[in-house]
């Protein structure tokens, strides 16, 4: 049995959007074109919480994507990632092994010297992996996010996050200091000029305390974390090959989410300026401009690891530097994901994800 083929199968199903043309068969599963019975995001439909914290089996793909910029008491910087992907072979869920839902987890810890990665794959239907909206819980094997909120309260406001792999692990406690933030048009996030879109909301206001266990040491850390929730059935246009995705904590308390989907032309950019009290200001397509500053050789390829990010309309102009150039996610479908710091018109920290390289 080739585990590789399993992972690839899964990855193809799940993260075509992450990998773009790198997927061995881009049209596999028909993600680029038709929805094949899956639901398709519609604009103007408000989120229902806590229901929407849970899984949406009628959509083809979905994720719970958590990144944290962490700091030890001595000032050492760390990054942590915890992601749960859901991918559906068919638009329903049922009990038992015949469930068409597949789950994949990625966990990572980044230091300035190392980047630790682990991956888990599971089938739905039997309880090995899944998400429950209330009380909130998302898990695959022993990795999990456990909500501590009482019923009726914001289920994502108080979370315990754990992941343990052979080389590393972490236990983090996340407390939201602001509200949930819908991205795009009130949660309807357009992904291409042709209209591909997803449902997308974030919780960018977590303050974090916890500990990391690394091969050489255990570290108590504090910091900030950001949760992205997104689901869709056809998130990418056919000619889109990958993306750069920024989630930035500005020292002013404001947040910025911005991404650029690369295609044969200019690319498609989208950004949301989030005020310190959590009000989203979706910026029009093209408002965000990103330019590579420095590339590094990562896993045998040249990848731009330092960027100039501008939003002229907001007077925003910063240059990002990664904590570790080599923040390469050597998972079934590899991508770059790591903590960054930025300076310029304003400084701060955040996370950068780059796919399709």
């Amino acid at each position: 049995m080739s585990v590789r083929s399993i992972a690839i199968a899964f990855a193809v199903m799940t993260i075509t959007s992450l990998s773009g043309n790198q997927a061995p068969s881009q049209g596999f599963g028909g993600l680029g074109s038709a929805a094949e019975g899956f639901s398709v995001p519609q604009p103007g439909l408000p989120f229902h919480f806590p229901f929407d914290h849970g899984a949406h089996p009628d959509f083809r793909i979905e994720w719970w994507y958590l990144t944290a910029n962490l700091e030890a008491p001595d000032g050492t910087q760390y990054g942590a990632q915890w992601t749960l992907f859901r991918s559906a072979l068919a638009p329903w869920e049922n009990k038992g092994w015949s469930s068409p839902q597949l789950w994949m987890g990625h966990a990572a810890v980044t230091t300035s010297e190392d980047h630790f990665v682990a991956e888990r794959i599971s089938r739905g239907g039997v309880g090995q992996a899944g998400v429950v909206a209330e009380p909130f819980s998302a898990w695959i094997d022993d990795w999990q996010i456990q909500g501590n909120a009482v019923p009726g309260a914001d289920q994502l406001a108080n979370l315990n996050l754990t992941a343990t792999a052979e080389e590393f692990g972490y236990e983090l406690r996340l407390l939201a200091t602001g509200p949930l933030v819908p991205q795009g048009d009130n949660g309807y996030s357009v992904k291409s000029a042709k209209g591909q879109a997803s449902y997308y909301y974030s919780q960018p206001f977590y303050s974090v305390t916890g500990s990391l266990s690394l091969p050489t040491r255990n570290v108590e850390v504090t910091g900030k974390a950001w949760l992205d929730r997104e689901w869709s059935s056809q998130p990418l246009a056919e000619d889109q090959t990958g993306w750069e995705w920024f989630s930035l904590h500005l020292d002013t308390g404001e947040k910025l989410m911005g991404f650029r989907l690369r295609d044969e032309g200019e690319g498609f950019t989208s950004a949301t300026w989030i005020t310190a009290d959590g009000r989203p200001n979706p910026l029009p397509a093209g408002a965000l401009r990103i330019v590579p500053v420095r590339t590094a050789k990562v896993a045998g390829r040249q990848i731009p690891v330092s960027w100039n990010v501008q939003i002229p309309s907001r007077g925003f102009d910063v240059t990002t530097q990664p904590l570790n150039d080599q923040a390469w996610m050597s998972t079934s479908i590899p991508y770059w994901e790591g903590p960054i710091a930025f300076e310029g018109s304003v400084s701060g920290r955040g996370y950068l994800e780059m796919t399709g390289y």
Partner: protein
Amino acid sequence: MMMWTAATALLSHWRRRPLQLGALLSGLALATALWSGVQAINAEARASYARAAAVLDQDELVNLVSPNGRSIPQAAFVRLRRAGWNVSPVLEGHYRFGATRLRMIGIEPLTMPVETNTVDLGNAGDLLSFISPPGTLVVSPGTAEKIRGQTDLALRVSDQMPDGVAFADIGLAQRLLKRDGELSRIVIAGDQRPGLEPLGMLVPELSVRETNAQSDVEHLTESFHLNLTAFGFLAFVVGLLIVYSTIGLAFEQRRPTFRTLRSLGVSLKVLAVLLIAELVLFALAAGAVGVAIGYLIASLLLPGVAATLEGLYGASVPGTLSLRPEWWVSGFAIAVAGTLVSSAQSLLRLMRVPLLAVAQPQTWGRSSEAGRRFQVLAAAALLSLSGALLLWADGLEAGFGVLGCLLLGASLLLPAVLSGFLTLMQRMSSGALVTWFWADARQQLPGLSFALMALLLALAANIGVGTMVESFRLTFVGWLDQRLAAELYVAARNGDEADRLRAWLATKVESVLPISSVDVEIRGQPMQVFGVVDDPTYREHWPLIVGIPDVWDRVASGEGVLVNEQLWRRERLRIGDKLDLASDWEATVVGVYSDYGNPKGQVMAAINALISHYPQVSRLRYGLRVQPDQVADLRSSLSDEFGLPPDNIVDQAALKEQSRRIFDRTFLVTGALNIFTLGVAALAMFSSLLTLSEMRLPQLAPVWAMGVTRRDLALLELLRTLVLWLATFAAALPLGLALAWVLLAVVNVEAFGWRLPMHIFPYEWVRLGLVALAAGVISVFIPLRRLAGLAPSELLKVLANER
């Protein structure tokens, strides 16, 4: 240059004696052939077991199982995963596709540990269709052939799969086996993250089963392969006897050449190197031929072996041979090693004996008195060891040890026994020619002793194995008659049909005997528990070996069970012992029945007891008792009126025939090897006689000169050879019977778990005697023709130094 000249001089010997060269090479080639042929078969079978074990048992891996052999709830698997354990669920069971019963193994490919590295499920798309409904079965090409058309499921054919097994997604397996949410075992991967909660805390209800070093199949078939190996080795030894005697003679005959070469300045070292090089060259040449013949033998025998293993052990081995480099190399190695071992004595003599010692080819092979005494002592020691092993040692290896010591000891004793016999005959005769006849036979004995030992081994093996097989057959056929008492055997396709079938049959047959069984693990061994109804059929026919007086009443009450002989012997059970058949089912052993041809232990219990403890037991198969003259009618109405497919109806005669066929196939290989061994022995005899005939002239010339015609001399030579053959045959009879007894009473019990009564088959001996005699006559024919056609001048040359 000198080396080359010396080598040419040495090699010229063989040009002048092509027959000697032929005997040497063919002896070596045959020995290598049988050895490497058997090795090839064993290697193929073992590779196949290893493959099957890798596929089926996830060797290397530790499993979590339920100690009472029952299902594991799926929740346990989820609990372990969520505690961080890298584990994977497996569900196993048997499932019928039409007439084909498959071992169904449900796996979960996403969590399957990498190191199981078993069956390639293909690319990503194949994997998705494997885990998605309706699902895919992964089967061997042979199995695919059988079940194609019997199922709507997609079939994926893999050469790595053993026959009779299907891999399916665990979800599909649960659906087909109707065991939703159940697992048979949980595989624990080799790599686990640190800091896990102990298994004992997480799943205290499960126990860890370490993988056996050997798979079940490997363990079961071990005796069979040991058997083959023993035969191959026997043939190899017989072949080496030829090599030993031929090389010894060639060295002795070339002593003048050695002397000349030495006096021409060739050092002893160079001479030795040349001779060793020559031997290695021969060994390689003969080895090549031998390995090729071995391959041929193996490919001829392998289908039979495969059938045997299938019939006897349910082990699946492909009928075709693949060339394995290690096997080629080992074939050559054994040829070279064998040659060097059997020429060691000659080489040592070359080094030790003074340069000018007179060559004595005509006395070569005549052992010294001390040597003979040593041989007798060694024989006595071996025979005593054999007896000691028989009395005090246990196990299959000990059984073969008894056999080995017995055969070797007896063959070492043979020359002394024959010599005694011939001395006695000589003493009892008075006529000049008669006395000479016996005396000369005795004198030839040393030269022939290796061939005669080879013959003794071959004949004894033939008699022994033949007696064992025939005894087995006789017992087996009688047992079949008892065991297959029902006239018709039918199988319903599903539970509904089974219910309808029972109702339909109620008025049409004398009795319906359900045949229901579950596979369980008792005392750590996989075995079957059969359920039977209380019916006169069992009371009257079932072949009980041991039983208490009211055995069937006790069984019917549900409190007593019967065990088969294998289980009885293996576990050293006694009547009255308790067996745990399920966590809440303890039963008393009240009887033992013979159960030939079944590698596993078996328990028979009342069907109601079985169903109450194993509610999921399949109840699809039935034996039907009807008047013999109604069988045909019932059969046709079963298929025409009731609508059961003809494949699902088997009558007693067909079943018996099938069993007998399996039995016969089983011993086909043994028979073939027997014949090969006998052939090698005949070749040994032939080459020895040929060798001797070259040395015979000085012994025959004076007798001829004193007035015995060449024709009469030839006739006497023939008679002498035949007397030696017959004497050896006579010696082989008791040895063969001893061998048969050890096989039946010791080796069979250890290997198969059953003991068989020994029957004597004198007609078989006569047949074997005739075959042996024919081989003897053929082996003596060429040497004899040479003698009878000898020109007087050849004889005169011996007598005169001048014309």
